[in-house]
């Protein structure tokens, strides 16, 4: 039994190293000063010329705060809109009978099966037509990043599932008390699905925060770059200066690592697997 445990620990430690190694090597490189050859054979993990200069240098040349704010505004707005619109749409789908319900249900389901990548070109043309690009100002630029992701069918189905578990009696009691549909929604149903709203918020946030394809299509102005686009751009800015590229990449990780560690139970408990999209 003991030996089996030790073996498990060894395997799990190896797996953890396997997962972290690329980042650890990036951190190591980012801390090496100009006096150390980053291509030295054999490679050295602990820097001999230890320095924070790369961090200071790249921080001075790249407006990380700006990228961070852009990513944050886009992610928070995307989350808020998703919470509102998904739960609103889910309510009648879960709780009411109406004409066209079946068609709507399958239409929404169909959007899950349509890959964004296959329709991104017309979406771009629509965004151009609506003038929601960064050339038309900062608010338009943000809207162009946010609106295509402001609601998604995963969220609607997640909320619908949550509403389905609430006993009907609660609503009936509220109707007897004279609540209208809107009051039932905000005062009876929404408070009961807070855990699901939290899950939807967290995974929408992560999705938006790491979105790369869409922002790299629509963004033209460096001031509007989100973090992933800005970090990719480091490669062009510092072509072969891997110390700077490494330091910049590591800087960009701080917000998401803090977010992940403080909410880790939502990610790794295994209870929310249905919430994440593939």
């Amino acid at each position, binding site marked *: 039994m003991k030996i089996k445990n030790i073996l498990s620990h060894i395997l799990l430690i190896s797996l953890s190293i396997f*997962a972290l190694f690329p980042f650890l090597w990036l951190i190591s490189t980012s801390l090496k000063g100009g006096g150390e050859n980053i291509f030295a054979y054999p490679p050295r993990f602990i820097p001999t010329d230890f320095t924070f200069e790369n961090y200071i240098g790249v921080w001075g040349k790249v407006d990380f705060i700006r990228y961070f704010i852009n990513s944050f505004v886009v992610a928070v707005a995307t989350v808020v809109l998703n919470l509102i619109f998904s739960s609103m749409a889910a309510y009648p789908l879960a709780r009411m009978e109406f004409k066209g319900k079946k068609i709507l249900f399958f239409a929404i389901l169909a959007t899950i099966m349509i890959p964004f990548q*296959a329709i991104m070109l*017309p979406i771009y043309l629509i965004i151009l037509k609506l003038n929601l690009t960064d050339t038309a100002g900062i608010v338009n630029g943000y809207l162009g990043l946010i609106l295509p992701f402001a609601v998604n069918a995963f969220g609607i189905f997640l909320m619908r599932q949550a509403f389905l578990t609430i006993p009907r009696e609660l609503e009936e009691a509220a109707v007897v008390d004279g609540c209208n*549909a809107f009051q039932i929604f905000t005062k009876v149903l929404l408070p009961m699905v807070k855990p699901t709203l939290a899950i939807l918020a967290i995974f929408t946030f992560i999705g938006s925060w790491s979105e790369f394809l869409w922002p790299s299509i629509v963004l033209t102005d460096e001031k509007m770059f989100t*973090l992933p686009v800005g970090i990719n751009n480091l490669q062009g800015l510092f072509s072969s200066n891997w110390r700077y590229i490494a330091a910049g990449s590591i800087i960009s990780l701080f917000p998401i690592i803090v977010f992940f560690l403080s909410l880790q139970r939502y990610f790794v408990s295994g209870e929310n697997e249905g919430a994440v999209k593939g």
Partner: protein
Amino acid sequence: MYKFFGKYVPYLFLIPAIILLAVFFFIPFFQTLGLSVTDYSNGLYSPEFCGLRNYLEVIKDPVFLKVLGNTFLFLVLVVPFLTIFPLFVAILINQKLRGINIYKVLIYLPVVVSIVVCAIAFKWLYAQDGILNYFLSLIGILPVGWLTDTQFALISVAIVTAWKGVGYYMIIYLAALMSVPKELYEACEIDGANSFQKHMAVSIPHLIPVIALVSTISAISAMKVFAEIYVMTKGGPLNSSKTIVYYIYERAFENLDLGMASAMAVILLLIVLAMSAVNIFCFERDKYKL
């Protein structure tokens, strides 16, 4: 009871979502179909219906055939690994051990890190004089041009996708493992089974639907691979790591060849649609309460 609410109420709640889905899903969907049968060669403002000509052009395009082959090769490289390996990790992590939660967090970490940073980190590992080639040199293998050799570029990209996906699928398997009735394991123990036999007899059969689910969703997401390629190789060298989404992106946004890009998008759409339909109607019925 819903007569209290009046006929229009359900639609009021649905309107914002319907408008957004219409503008950003259904209209673009039909536009993609429309663009794929439109010829823009006389300029963006004089579109002409051209039947299936764009499709013929796509099928005759040697780069497209190469790209399609790459995409399926990519699937073959990534999907079996992501279906099998995370299952073992999940079994390993589904134990009562000291610090087990720390392992979960560390193994899951690459999932939440932006693919751009992951790709940059790997690009650095893959450097010609980089650390990976150093490790290889220790066992007597000559340096490999991970991202510069046409034989390796696609494999190198697939390694990143596979590495990043382990934690994600591990959690899906873990959730399923936690729902295996404990009594079944206990029965095995009474019969004197060791833990390997226990998992072969109980866990694996119990997980078959989840294994099927993981193989389809990992295939769907492998079909859509883009960022890894964009950051690391731009599809090169010589198109050797170019997959379908990247090629659509290039045709649409760099060459402004709307017709051909849309015809390829329709092909992508059909493939993914088929996979998703299998997934939703066979493996995820419960999730959508169909």
